[in-house]
């Protein structure tokens, strides 16, 4: 097919409502509505997926868990045991092939949360206690002792 003939054919096809109705003119309304709904659904699904993905990204979770844990330690008193559910972190760590037991580290008075190979977020706490952390199922357990 020559380019000219191709253009002509395209023109005819685009002008013809039959590309959607396949010759059945009375079915045009239904097909058009279905296309309209499907496209809108695809658009909404992509948008919702995008929103969820943004909210559960490693950078956002690392920061939120690090700050949450630092505040928990700040408001704790020796001797205490704190259980923190970190289901989302566990799922993300498994996805990024990171051992869940190494997601949270406490060094001196810094909480370090690492959920991706290159990432990691640290936040300091001012409560001068000896804090240790270990994973237990989907939770992390924090033991607060006197220094």
């Amino acid at each position, binding site marked *: 097919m020559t380019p000219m003939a191709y*253009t002509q054919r*395209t*023109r005819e096809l*685009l*002008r013809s*409502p039959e590309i*959607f*109705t396949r010759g059945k003119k009375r079915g*045009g*309304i239904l097909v*058009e*509505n279905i*296309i*309209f709904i499907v*496209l809108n659904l695809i*658009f909404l699904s*992509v*948008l919702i997926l*995008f*929103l969820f993905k*943004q*909210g559960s*990204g490693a950078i*956002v979770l690392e*920061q*939120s868990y690090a*700050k949450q844990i*630092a*505040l928990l330690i*700040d*408001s704790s008193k020796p001797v205490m045991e704190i259980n923190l559910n970190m289901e989302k972190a566990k799922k993300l760590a498994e996805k990024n092939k990171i051992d869940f037991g190494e997601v949270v580290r406490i060094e*001196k*008075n*810094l909480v370090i949360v690492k959920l991706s190979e290159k990432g990691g977020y*640290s*936040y*300091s*706490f*001012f*409560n*001068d*206690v000896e804090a240790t952390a270990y994973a237990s199922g989907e939770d992390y357990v924090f033991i607060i002792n006197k*220094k």
Partner: protein
Amino acid sequence: MIDKNFFSYSFFPKNKRGDKIISVYWFAILILVAGGISAMVFVFYNQPYDVREIEANILTNNIADCLSQGGYLRDEFFDGENFLLNETNFLEKCELNFEVEEIWEEEQYYVKVEIYQISDLNNPVFNFDYGNEKWVVNCVFQEEKEFEKLSECYERRFYCLDKSGNQHLIKILSVINKGDKNVK
């Protein structure tokens, strides 16, 4: 060459009644909406969580717990005549550690404690401060939204008794900067 009808209002076949039309304009609107939402989400998640207000609140509570117990000034800080809290023993006695991440070279906390006798609430009988004094000037501007990037201040006051039964008013001001990790 694309047919000019492609960009026209009636690329998709028109319903004869004309009550529903899918056009290129509809997709343009969708793209605009998607772009707007993406931009908003990007801006929202790009902002760090500001936890300094909670942090300052907890710090103030910790200092209050350190100074008084059961409504009485602790004996180790007040021997009946003198207040024994000072810059050298404050962190140790109150079990605090003001070391921060390496990204900051200077102290990120400031704490001020003032103790008043109930008979004179204008002149403190005892006061001391600890930390980086330069953050405290920001407390004045804190109320205004445009200055939220400045350090966060939290003041609390409470009454307590000494062992002789004298009433005291204690004011504690905690200031936390940590700006780089809490605001952008």
